[in-house]
């Protein structure tokens, strides 16, 4: 059984580690304990600033800091980073293309017990519509660590999506390499492609195993960078496997499913079925039953994959 670590944990540790090598500032909005920027705060108290419970102000403050040439991370829950502060992210950060790295934690349904007001299933859709925004949704702790350093080396705004819930580490391989905008084929297959992001990547691998037992060879592609999306790997999958299933812990509208469907329909139309939160609000509960409740499971991916295969011409 793989070790399980929450991507927010990896985010906080990466900030503290990279603070040695890079000159940047970290902002939080009274959630440092939860977003894990606390690690950076402890290591570099003179470069950490709590903005209090005022996320809109935090984003515009971040823009001001970045305008002086200093990279800055702004952290809060996804709901408040992309939701509450959408307009500040769009106008203060996105429009002038400033070097602000948004560390949005507690994304998706796996917030758990706090329930719908805090379960953000819309952030990817919102951030995708901001021109020039890079969006990274890492699948595990290894990828989260890599994403933070990659974000520092991007000239412009980056939205990084992290989860509260501990997820299996799947990228701790000697050859692991993170490249912004490049999807990763984790498993070869020719019958159908499962394109997954975030914590759904490990479930996609499980689903592929289950499909294999039914005689279906599923390809698994990890899309950690949702914008700019890797068109090449998606079109290749459409051509070579003829059917695609997307899997994300996000509304099926506007997120990975939307992005993949756009690429496929414009380049090489094949069936694209989407696994995700089906345009619903969240609910309080422990994470495992919530994932069942919202259909974020390997079984659901298998079901959609079989349906996608039958839709092939």
């Amino acid at each position, binding site marked *: 059984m793989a070790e399980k670590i929450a991507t927010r944990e990896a985010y906080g540790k990466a900030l503290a580690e990279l603070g040695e090598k890079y000159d940047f*500032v970290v902002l939080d909005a009274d959630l440092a304990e939860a977003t894990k920027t606390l690690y950076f705060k402890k290591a570099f108290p*003179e*470069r950490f*600033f709590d*903005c*209090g419970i*005022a996320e*809109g*102000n935090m*984003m*515009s*403050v*971040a*823009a*001001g*800091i*970045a*305008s*002086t*040439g*200093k990279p*800055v991370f702004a952290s809060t829950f996804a709901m408040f980073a992309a939701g509450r502060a959408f*307009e*500040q992210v769009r*106008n*203060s950060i996105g*429009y*002038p*293309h400033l070097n602000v790295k948004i560390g949005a934690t507690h994304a998706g349904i796996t917030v758990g017990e706090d329930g719908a007001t805090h379960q953000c299933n819309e952030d990817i859709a919102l951030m995708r519509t901001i021109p020039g925004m890079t969006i990274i949704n890492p699948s595990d702790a290894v990828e989260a660590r890599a994403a933070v350093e990659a974000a520092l080396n991007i000239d412009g705004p980056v939205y990084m999506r992290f989860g509260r819930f501990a997820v299996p580490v799947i990228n701790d391989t000697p050859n692991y390499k993170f490249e912004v905008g490049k999807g990763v084929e984790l498993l070869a297959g020719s019958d159908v492609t499962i394109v997954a992001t975030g914590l759904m990547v490990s479930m996609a691998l499980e689903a592929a195993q289950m499909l294999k037992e039914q005689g279906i060879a599923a390809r698994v592609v990890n899309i950690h960078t949702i914008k700019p999306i890797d068109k090449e790997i998606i079109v290749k999958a459409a051509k070579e496997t003829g059917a695609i299933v997307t899997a994300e812990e996000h509304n099926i509208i506007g997120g990975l499913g939307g992005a993949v469907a756009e690429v496929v329909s414009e380049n090489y139309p094949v069936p694209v079925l989407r696994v995700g939160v089906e345009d619903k609000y969240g609910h309080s509960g422990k994470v495992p039953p919530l994932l069942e409740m919202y259909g974020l499971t390997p079984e659901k991916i298998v079901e959609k994959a079989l349906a996608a295969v039958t839709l092939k011409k």
Partner: protein
Amino acid sequence: MNQNELKSLKTTAAKIRLGILEGVHAAASGHPGGSLSIAEILTYLYFKELNVDPKNPKNPDRDRFVLSKGHTAPGLYAALAEKGFFDRAELKNLRHVDSFLQGHPDMKIIPGVDMSAGSLGLGISSACGMALAGKVDKKNYRVYTVVGDGESEEGQVWEAAMFAAHYKLDNLCVIVDWNGLQIDGPVAEVMNPTPHDKKFEAFGFHVISVDAHDFEQLEKAFEEAKTVKGKPTAIIAKSVKGKGVSYMENEVKWHGSAPNDELYEQAVSEITEAMKNI
């Protein structure tokens, strides 16, 4: 301030007023009222206060200015042109599709603009970020921002005020353009945000009240602001919206509309006449 300097500043303010009117008239849209109300403030900042150099607009050690009430960009652009950041002839291209002079300030393409702004409440926060970065980097630059009185109805203005005082941003100077009018009518009737002096004081600012059109008062206020340690300063500047153009003064209508040819000519002649008497 000696008489020659005062005369020179007054002349510059009049030129900025002419630039505002030229831009808004040529665009047949834009916001003259709140641009005219800050003509002296912009003049004082760009010709007396700010350490900025049009030949080196991105100097990391420069003072910064954020026009938080970004809709009064015609005022900022006229000041920047007068200062030499770009050719004054550009003003007549304001808001045109082939011009870099956007309806609201755009730091990416307009020389001398330190922060894109215009969505109200955002600019003051960005000014706080610049001031904080100055503290972190131990730089001596100062940061100035002009906030509208109507703008202060935005909650973010007060989030920023809280932040500025909390982090003791004594390198930050917020100027409130208290012209008393907003789109829907008198600020006091639409949603009264006053008293600004007491509010900023309660938020932890050093507060100075001035007549926004009096250069000697402005000088005293800006000099005083530089002596304040451990807290930001707010200058509450009582102004006349549309100042300098008789038919625009204190008229809500001129918040966001442009004069026709006839009224434009009248405005130009009023300001030109007034210039002769400086």
